[in-house]
């Protein structure tokens, strides 16, 4: 049997996390090839709707990565993301969707290795959960 390879959409903020992912690349750090990167200006730009739509259109998991608290380029974008993600996880659970399918974390521009670790962890989490299927009548 072939191993399940989850599709993971990763939203990265331009100022920290995308630079961190870039560093992982230029430092030749190996990480799971399951991540599909989408760059946005700030984690605060990630509308929870984007996350639902990603899942709806075939992603098995969604990662949102932003600057560490206190370091957002726009000062408080990532604080908004914290509240939204916490609420979204509750809503997903009520919909019968495992809340582990979405994860918010922080990666600074100098944390290439941390980026790789988070992507690897997320890939394993989703591999264990299995493919995301909408349970519909």
């Amino acid at each position, binding site marked *: 049997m072939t191993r399940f390879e989850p599709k993971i959409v990763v939203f990265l903020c331009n100022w920290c996390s995308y630079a961190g992912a870039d560093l992982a690349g230029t430092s030749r750090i190996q990480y799971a090839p399951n991540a599909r990167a989408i760059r946005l200006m700030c984690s605060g730009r990630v509308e929870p709707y984007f996350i639902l739509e990603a899942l709806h259109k075939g992603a098995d998991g969604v990662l949102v990565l932003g600057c560490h608290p206190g370091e957002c380029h726009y000062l408080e974008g990532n*604080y*908004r993301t914290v509240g939204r993600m916490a609420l*979204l996880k509750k809503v997903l659970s009520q919909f019968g969707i495992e809340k582990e399918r979405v994860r918010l974390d922080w990666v600074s521009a100098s944390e290439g290795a941390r980026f790789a670790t988070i992507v690897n962890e997320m890939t394993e989490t989703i591999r264990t959960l299995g493919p995301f299927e909408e349970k519909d009548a």
Partner: protein
Amino acid sequence: MDKLKLALYWASSCGGCDIATLAIGEKILEVAETAEIVFWPVAMDFKYKDVERMPDKRIDACLFNGAIRTSEDEHMAKMLRTKSKIMVAYGSCAYEGCIPGLANFFSLKSILERVYEETPSTDNPGKVYPQTRVQMPEGDLEIPELKNMVKTLAQTVDVDYFVPGCPPEEKTTWLALEALLNGKLPERRSVISHSSKALCEECSLVREGRKVKKFYRPYEVIPDPEKCLLEQGLLCYGVATRGGCGAMCPQAGMPCTGCYGAVEGVIDQGVHFLTALGSIIDSTDPVEIKQIVDGIVDPAGTFYRYSLPVSLFRRAKSV
């Protein structure tokens, strides 16, 4: 000139929409002058057979309220569609599923178990469940079958117009009726309301850009009647709800619960409101932010109170 042939029907609804059509007051006389009501189960004695016998497209316009939850709802939606030139989803249930649509959080099986076995007031040792068909000496009796999923009218048949509200406000009803009576209809498939923007635009309560430390349920606080309720920690849905109702609820101290549906262009009303809430929390401490949002009881039920059947993930895992 022939009078406009009007039909009104209720599917899975509370009956409020039928009452709301009467809320137009003396304008009903104007309707009586220009229109002939050919079918209206709640008010007049017609039989389904009368509709069946009509030729196709005999009805000029049908105001259909209620969600599609039973085989009877579905049957009538299809029949009325065939018989009507214009099909209007009237009210939140027909438009977006509304309160009956909350059933989509559960499977039909779990709902029936709850109702016929588990509720504290139920005494049903024989586990007797209602059947759709029963034999009696007089012959077979039938009741409609409950569907596993509650659907909107547009998820069942082609719909020409939508009228929002639980129930629609008098002026919204009149906007739709006037358009029908005069034949001056807006673009097909549009939502008929005085506004396509968020309710906050027409709300007179004062916004000061205040953020909140705690969310309250309406019974927990007496809000300042002059100021925006959301900024006082009440989950006022005005930011993510289509206007046109006149904002009577917030202006009377009661937070908007979202019955006019999503703002034009928004696909999922619930998650739109969730997004807005993320912006008004007064904290820069991730732990405290999580505590504040944890104070919201039943977020999915609150955010999707009227729109679960049209949300992206409209039902829970069978429980």
